[in-house]
């Protein structure tokens, strides 16, 4: 370990019950870093929203996958924390019948320095969230 770049990788079944588990894992990962409490809680909220979207939307209408999963990578470099949440679901698609309030993506966008949404081949979605770290010398 050089202390330059620290990584977390996590794959869990895509279920509602696993959302707190993922959040706690990320919290543990962040604990090792010098993050302000406010930033850490923003990160946990954004991660939760992204993972909740996987559970609610990605594998709807049983997209062929036997074992729907959430994949998460967190990477902590000197100036930014980057967290990617991926699924192998049906791909990003709007829903007029969403059970949610439509606040997930806006909350993520409001909390992050940058959010990217893109296909995750062959058919899933990747949401990459970047958080600017406080200036660290």
């Amino acid at each position, binding site marked *: 370990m050089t202390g330059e770049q620290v990584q977390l990788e996590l794959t869990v079944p895509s279920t509602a019950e696993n*959302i*707190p588990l993922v*959040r706690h894992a990320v919290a543990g990962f962040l604990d090792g870093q010098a993050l302000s409490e406010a930033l850490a*809680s923003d990160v946990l909220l954004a991660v*939760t*929203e992204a993972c*909740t979207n996987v559970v609610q939307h990605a594998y709807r209408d049983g997209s062929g996958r036997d074992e729907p999963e959430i994949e998460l990578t967190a990477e902590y470099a000197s100036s930014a924390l980057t967290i990617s949440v991926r699924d192998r679901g049906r791909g990003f698609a709007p829903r007029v019948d969403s059970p949610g309030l439509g*606040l997930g993506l806006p*909350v993520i966008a409001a909390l992050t320095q940058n959010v990217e949404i893109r296909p995750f081949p062959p058919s899933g979605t990747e949401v990459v969230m970047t958080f600017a770290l406080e200036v660290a010398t």
Partner: protein
Amino acid sequence: MQERDSGSHPQFERRQVEEVVTELRIKGELDIGSADALRQALDSAEAEGAIVRLDASDVLFLDSTALGVLLASAQRLSARGGRLELMNASPAVRRILDMTLIARTVHLIP
């Protein structure tokens, strides 16, 4: 111009109102994993009266899914002339409340 007049000669009325408030203290993290439990707890509280006050002292986390549950409850209560109140929100909880301006529907007690 009637309004103007009463504006320049203000009148005050004071009365006392007795309200029954159902307080609900919540402990834990509120997300999609606990949304059903939250919904049920609110349902039961709503059955007791039209004013429900959540004590969020021990709510460690609250996301947009939980917010949706609160909002639905607040709307049901206010349709009955009641309200949903939330007190003792931690900074982390306040963050999402402030961000979404939910305070217009849920009454925050500082």
